[in-house]
């Protein structure tokens, strides 16, 4: 029983646990907006992050879509990168050694065109030092074949999660698509299939047209909408999913500052990810960590967990 240790009244517990991944604070980055960390390391010490979530990685290298791949929209942007990436080997041999220098869990975003591909990437990553979790991207809207189809039904989502679950003991985080009628049912299916946590939202499918050339602005025709424009939708979905499943959520969609992040946490996210915000302010993620701490102090709270889902 002993004597309770005196605790610093001002120390705030920022730690969270995402399905077994211990994060020193609730802030990670959104896959595809942070590369594999190397470029961002010029701006700040990556060890400051709660976790580092890297770009979508497939078994073989993918070239991605043609240029133009991005277009700015009101308070947002469309991207149709098409998941360009150097493939699993490059991740393991070139990117991971760099990331292992930092004291932050690494979450690898996994994409595939078949169940087998997802399974194989998962199997290979299971034993890679420094990889703490897999974020299963069943929802990429910019790739013609493959992953989008999985993410739009509970069954398809469950299939991918099961395929991955069979191959790995790493934390599985399923990343949900917002382009669906009932995100909560898909969330439930992912959890039932063994997902330890969920992340949401991926981008909303959209397009833009140049009236003068009468052509689509993206070579791929459609792209995924991200940024502040989608925040209200993302927040609603986090709230809906938080009320229907019991696993921790990583919330994202338009987070630019600490108060945006707090909204997601109040809605039910245990952690948050900064995506497009990194482009506008490469220091956004670290400023948000500090800002959440300030917020908790002002609200007289001693931990992040105290406010998770506390909206009323």
């Amino acid at each position, binding site marked *: 029983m002993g004597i309770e240790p005196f605790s610093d009244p001002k120390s705030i517990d920022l730690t969270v646990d995402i399905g077994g991944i211990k994060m020193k604070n609730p802030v990670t980055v959104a896959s*595809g*907006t*942070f*590369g594999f960390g190397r*470029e*961002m390391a*010029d*701006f700040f010490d990556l060890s400051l992050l709660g976790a580092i979530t890297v770009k979508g990685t497939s078994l073989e290298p993918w*070239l*991605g879509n043609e*240029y*133009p*791949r*991005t*277009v*700015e929209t*009101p*308070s*947002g*942007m469309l*991207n149709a*990168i098409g998941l*360009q990436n150097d493939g699993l080997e490059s991740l393991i041999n070139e990117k991971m050694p760099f990331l292992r220098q930092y004291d932050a869990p690494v979450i690898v975003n996994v994409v595939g065109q078949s169940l087998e591909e997802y399974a194989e990437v998962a199997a290979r990553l299971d034993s890679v030092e420094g990889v703490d979790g897999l974020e299963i991207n069943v929802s990429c809207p910019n790739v013609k074949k493959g992953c989008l189809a999985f993410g739009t039904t509970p069954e398809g989502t469950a299939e991918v999660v099961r395929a991955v679950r069979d191959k790995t003991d790493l934390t599985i985080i399923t990343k949900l698509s917002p382009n669906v009628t009932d995100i909560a049912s898909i969330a439930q299916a992912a959890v039932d299939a063994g997902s330890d946590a969920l992340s949401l939202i991926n981008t909303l499918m959209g397009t833009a047209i140049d009236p003068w050339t009468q052509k689509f602005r993206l070579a791929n025709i459609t792209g995924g909408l991200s*940024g*502040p*424009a989608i925040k209200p939708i993302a927040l609603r979905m986090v709230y809906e999913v938080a009320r229907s499943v019991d696993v921790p959520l990583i919330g994202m969609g338009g987070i*630019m500052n600490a108060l945006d992040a707090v909204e997601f946490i109040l809605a039910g996210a245990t952690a948050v990810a900064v995506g*497009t915000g*990194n*482009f*506008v*302010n*490469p*220091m956004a993620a670290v400023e948000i960590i500090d800002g959440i701490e300030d917020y908790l102090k002002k609200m007289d709270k001693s931990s992040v967990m105290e406010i998770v889902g506390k909206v009323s």
Partner: protein
Amino acid sequence: MPNTPCGMKSIYDCKLIEQHEVSPGVWLSKLTGPEIARGAVAGQFVNVQVAKTTDPLLRRPFSLHAVDREKGTFSLLYVLVGRGTALLHRYVSGDIISVVGPLGNGFDLGDSPDAEHIVVAGGCGAAPLHFLCDSLCEKWGCEKVTVLVGGKSKDALLCEDEFREHGVLTEAATDDASYGYGGFVTQLLQAHLDKRSDASNLRIYSCGPHGMMREVARICSEHEVQSCQVSLENKMACGIGVCTGCIQKIKKQSQGCDPAWEYKRVCADGPVFEAENIIWE
């Protein structure tokens, strides 16, 4: 190439010293930014936050037009083309503007004192080439440098006087023949190269409209110059190499069954590329 100074890039709050219109629709801004001024090389750019609100959302990339290392200042030369530049030109002296930079790789000025340098500027492509001229003069002497500057008409010629002030030989070309050489600046370049039997000590640097740079590349390859570098202006989302939005097809050195090209990021692997490596479309 690459010619990137390491570890300099960061976010800076730069104070606008002053800005004014240098010709219709073209503005010159001068900002404080000691780290940027000290660390930058010609051909690099900065990514400027134009709005304090979320629309327009993304930063706007602008080449470094000039730097004053002692005073710790840098200048941008920009054309009013849309919403972002419209907001930018409304800032007033003393305003603080958030700037990420210096970004990208600069021009490779070569390592041979014998080389001659021709700078080909088209329209607003003059922006980075002014800084380049400065650097070339500093490194190799102004007498080794010629500038060919082109525009639709006399009024549309940018920086002609500034180039002359460097003390470099400057020739102008106007599409409508209202001033200088009558024709495209690429034709002027062609004429220059046609005069030479051997172009192998020539280094060409160019920035301007896509079609113009493509033509520069064609002419250079025809004459087998030592180096022909162009600075691309692909659309950028992040400007710092993480989104892979600004890609350009670049020839791959030598690989087996892979495609003969790969995607390079203009913001992080460029914006300056050897023209012969670019797959123009």
